[in-house]
């Protein structure tokens, strides 16, 4: 069955595409020379907002490059909105909006001309692009400043104009790379609200690459964690947080080092904060009273013991293996 895409009705149909999946990658490999950047990535992302997390060098940028069609994977296949990433790059770019991390502008242009220009390059008729540019600039909060030259914009305004150019052609899929960098707390919360508003619509998929885990937690229902070129975790944030371990915070009196060693020997992962708080990730086969037995054996007094809620930070730390 040939691929059919009806942009107006925002429907896509394809015999091979998995129902409800906007991004599907299978066994994607990519290397920069001898350095493996992606090593067998399988990915399925459906509707809503999805966060892309990972430490530096995990392969996030390479994955985005492949999704945007800038890089051709060494091996593997994939579809975005039902379109083949290897053969339909143009169609994909028409349907995708991209907000890069770096400041991007064209000197000498005001926001309206800039936004309309990129709308036109995406395939919008000139007049329509101009009208739409006004709309999106009001939407991102630059309505009053839309005739100012971009060079005079503050860092926060530059962030918004990048979002405006990504939205101008009404994409079906939005890639946001560090959307809240350079923003003050108020600006950050406003942009996050915008992203939430956009992603709350069932027909716009948002993929956010960010280092700020709280941003991901605020805006996304799903997360993909990359580590060393592989998918370390993937799925709904709530479901992933229901992990097969319990997290306890404790303060102790006694020889901490031997206690930590004993905990680790029993299968726990232990982190010590600067304030002397111990965060103990307990495996499912160890019961809570086991901790007290170990403490008693090592002559440790437990002065504070609280079961902690697992946050995205905890999930990230556990998945990637960093503090």
């Amino acid at each position, binding site marked *: 069955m040939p691929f059919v895409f009806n942009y107006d009705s925002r429907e896509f149909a394809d015999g091979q595409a998995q129902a409800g999946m906007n991004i599907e990658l299978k066994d994607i490999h990519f290397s920069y020379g001898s350095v493996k950047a992606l090593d067998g990535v399988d990915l399925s992302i459906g509707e809503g907002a999805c966060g892309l997390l990972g430490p530096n060098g995990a392969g996030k940028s390479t994955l985005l490059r492949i999704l945007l069609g800038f890089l051709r994977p060494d091996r593997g296949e994939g579809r975005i909105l039902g379109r083949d990433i290897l053969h339909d790059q143009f169609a994909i770019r028409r349907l995708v909006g991209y907000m890069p991390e770096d400041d991007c502008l064209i000197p000498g242009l005001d926001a309206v001309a800039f936004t309309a220009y990129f709308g036109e390059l995406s395939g919008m008729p000139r007049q329509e692009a101009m009208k739409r540019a006004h709309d999106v600039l009001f939407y991102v909060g630059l309505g009053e400043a839309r005739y100012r030259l971009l060079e005079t914009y503050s860092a926060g305004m530059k962030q918004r104009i990048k979002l405006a150019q990504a939205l101008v052609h009404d994409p079906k899929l939005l890639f946001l790379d560090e959307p809240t960098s350079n923003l003050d707390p108020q600006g950050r919360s406003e942009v996050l609200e*915008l992203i939430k508003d956009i992603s709350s619509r069932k027909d716009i998929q948002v993929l956010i690459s960010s280092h700020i885990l709280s941003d991901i937690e605020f805006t996304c229902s799903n997360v993909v964690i990359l580590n060393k070129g592989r998918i370390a975790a993937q799925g709904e944030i709530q479901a992933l947080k229901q992990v097969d371990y319990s997290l306890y915070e404790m303060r102790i009196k006694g020889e901490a080092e031997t206690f930590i060693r004993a905990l680790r020997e029993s299968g726990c992962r232990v982190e010590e904060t600067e304030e002397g708080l111990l965060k103990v990730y307990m495996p499912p086969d160890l019961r809570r009273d086991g901790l007290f037995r170990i403490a008693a054996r090592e002559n440790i007094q437990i002065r504070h013991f609280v079961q902690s809620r697992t946050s995205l930070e905890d999930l990230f730390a556990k998945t990637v293996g960093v503090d």
Partner: protein
Amino acid sequence: MPISEQGYRHWEGTLIGRRRPWAPITRLGIKLAFKRKYFKFVLGVSLLPALIFTVGIYISEKIEDFKFMIRGRNRFLTVDPAYFKAYFTGDFLLFMMVMIMVLAGAGLIADDLKHNSLQLYFARPLRKRDYLLGKLGVVSFFLLLQTLVPGLLFFLLKLIFSGSFKFFTQYPRIPLAVVLDSLLLIVFFGLYTLVLSSLGRNRRFVSILIFLVYLFSDIFFGVFYGIFHLPAFCLLSLKADLQQVGAALFGVPGPYEFPWMYSALVLAGLSAAAVFVLLRKINSVEVIK
């Protein structure tokens, strides 16, 4: 700066596939060039030779009326292929073309590199070819104003002022030579400007580069020619190469006694090298850091 309280709204239109996806890039480049300081002035000055040669064509047809001014120097007012060649290969016109490139072309790619805009272009349905054609279009537009437009205008005015087609039957190759020499100048200067623009992120640096490479190629030629008295050194000079090939296209002897084919090869080689460098430098892989 409150965020709009209305929610996100879809656009109801339909995206179109353009036959000339590079056209918006060219249009914007031209618009931005006119915003540059001194650009309109320099463009106006660069059109002065066209004005003077137009007046020359008029006078050549009304020579009896201007006898008191000419006083035996009417060899300058003989409109023939050499007259056209004198316009197209004139030092001043070539210099003004370089000045136009400095003002309108230096930032074409350098600004995009400096302000990271390449990634925005290539996140759109644009090929590298479309991007480069769009940028080349900006340079071409201004060079056309200095070459093809006045060249064809001279020819038409000559026919109009003379009131017959005798000039056309006498020199039928002139229109073709005008088109070919215009194309040569546009392609060469276009690629020359774009490649230098892609080598730096600083518009000023590129401007200086465009000017100095042109100037020093001519200075080197002058120095070597002065020492060795060999016309072959004209190959070192971009200006001399353009003059040699231009003269050959109009069917008149070049300024240097050296086969024009070698100059044509130098220009073709430089243009090919420029295309090679441009295709390597403008790389969508680098668009996301």
